[in-house]
């Protein structure tokens, strides 16, 4: 099955990004595909490479990037939401790209299921 995932909260403040990441990992491990993860609202902060959590905690920005590299998952940060929050190419983490909201609609059309994580 083809899944599209929307992440609506930034890392750490809420568990939404952790849950979305774990869902994505489980999905590919079960042989399904995550065709895209779209980051909206404060979710765009997941693509900030300046995020530096303490060494003994998980680094969600890095984990997303590793997922993208290992399983060819397309990580898209919404440009309008990103610019509002200061997320630009200069600070975009590996594995992410910045694009328009149309990519969210397109993902929902191409996926068998669209899942939303976060408020």
């Amino acid at each position, binding site marked *: 099955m083809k899944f599209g995932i929307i992440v609506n909260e930034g890392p750490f403040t809420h568990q939404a990004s952790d849950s979305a990441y774990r869902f994505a990992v489980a999905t590919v491990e079960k042989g399904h595909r995550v065709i895209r993860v779209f980051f909206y609202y404060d979710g765009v902060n997941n693509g900030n490479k300046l995020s530096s959590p303490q060494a003994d905690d998980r680094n969600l920005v890095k984990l997303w990037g590793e997922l993208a590299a290992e399983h060819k998952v397309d990580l898209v940060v919404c440009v309008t939401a990103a610019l509002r929050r200061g997320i630009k190419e200069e600070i975009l983490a590996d594995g992410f790209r910045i694009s328009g909201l149309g990519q969210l609609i397109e993902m*929902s059309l191409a996926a068998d299921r669209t899942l939303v994580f976060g408020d």
Partner: protein
Amino acid sequence: MAEDQPVEFDTQGVKKRFMFVNRRAPYGSIYALEILEMVLISAAFEQHAAIVFIDDGVFQIKKGQDTKSLGIKNFSPTYGVVEMEKQDAEEDDDMDMVWRIIVEKESMEARGLSADDLIVGVEVLGADALSALMDAQDVVLSG
């Protein structure tokens, strides 16, 4: 991202039912504004859409919003664009796109509002009918 991953999908001819669920007051958080941006983008894809206002979300389309003292932009006139898109779709026989603007009856009445207090024309649906409609959607997005 790996280079061989397609980032454009072939969605030609795909038609889905989208529901946008507005649950929050317009200015206490950014959700109302950013979900509105989603709604407007979806118009370009000519998809079916139900734009729903429940809970404090009904305040998003209340007449007479004045945000001057908040220092936040009053974006409520943009809901007029949503209504325009809806009417355009209705009038264009070649366009297979149905948009509905829906307010949940219970939420509206609990806030002392009626359809006359709202800046756009709405369908008023009870919670049960809305629940059934939600169940019939392909994609539900909320904010």
